[in-house]
């Protein structure tokens, strides 16, 4: 049993290292880039939009293209996030998606 837990296939290890190298490359690319380029004016404004734009892109398919339960729960979570601490808003989102899925499949 313990031999199964600690088993490492050489090709699996190699694949993991290849994944790690390509991930690290993307993570330091911005560091290298900003050493040679300084951003101001319009490009700075564009770069400031990166955080919300990426976060939105990651959630958009689940939030808007999965089903009515997910889309409604997204709206509820967003409204809750304006007034409540993050953990509370997240909890409301998770509970509402469960309730909505049950309600929508009941009909």
């Amino acid at each position, binding site marked *: 049993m313990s031999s199964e837990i600690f088993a490492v296939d050489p090709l699996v290890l190699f694949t993991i290292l290849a994944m790690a190298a390509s991930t690290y490359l993307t993570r330091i690319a911005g560091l290298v880039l900003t050493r040679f380029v300084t951003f101001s004016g319009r490009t700075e404004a564009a770069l400031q939009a990166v955080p919300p734009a990426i976060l939105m892109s990651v959630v958009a*398919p689940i939030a808007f293209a999965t089903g009515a339960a997910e889309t409604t729960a997204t709206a509820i979570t967003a409204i809750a996030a304006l007034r409540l601490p993050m953990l509370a808003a*997240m909890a409301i989102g998770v509970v509402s998606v469960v309730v909505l899925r049950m309600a929508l499949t009941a009909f």
Partner: protein
Amino acid sequence: MKTNQNKSAVNAGPNEFLLGVTTFFPLIFAVAPIGLLFGALAAQKGLSPLEVLLMGSFVFAGGSQFLALDLWADPLPWVTVAFSTFLINLRHVLMSASLAPKLGHWTTLQRYLGFFILADEVWALSEQRAIKHHTTFSFYLGVGLTLFVTWQVATVAGSLIGAVMGDPSRFGLDFAFTALFICLVMGFWQGRKTGVVLAASGLAAVLTYKFVPGAWYIIAGAVAGVIAAAIQYDDSPKTQLKPAEALQS
């Protein structure tokens, strides 16, 4: 560490580290179920718990780890796996370029070592911190190491208990990650212009997701949002107020 004469001196050292840990704390409830799920799926694909730990530690990027499992087969298509990892993680180029100017006094070594763990959540909380204050290395480590430990413990536990756990969507936990990101998005709200950026990103991401296979939708959405921000840029002086100044007043 060099002494800071300005107001940030009180924020240096262990306090900043602890602040990072406590800032991350609520996210444990979003990350742990996803980690358990990853471990369980990995076990189904034949990965040993040690292989799960190695992947989590070296790659440390949840989205690409799930994508790799999706592609996992015998014989192992390592070129496809590595290239798909690169594609889905291309967003990190924009993320690190965006965060780099907002860091406090980081040494070059700290930058290049620290960004090894620049996962989505670490980046998002560092950006959120940077709205009010430069992101210190201690704060970043507090957030990053807490996520690192959470992710490794959860994924290895998932691979050990594997099949015992049922489908996490039963408890709505598959939505936890989405709910977390929605909360983070709302933190970046600065008015109508943000609304236009979000609408452009969301629309581009959904359309790309529907019609283009793979992880291109994240890049498409990010680029659309950035273009929307650039178009809306107004170089008259009154718009020069930085969000940090606006929030501190």
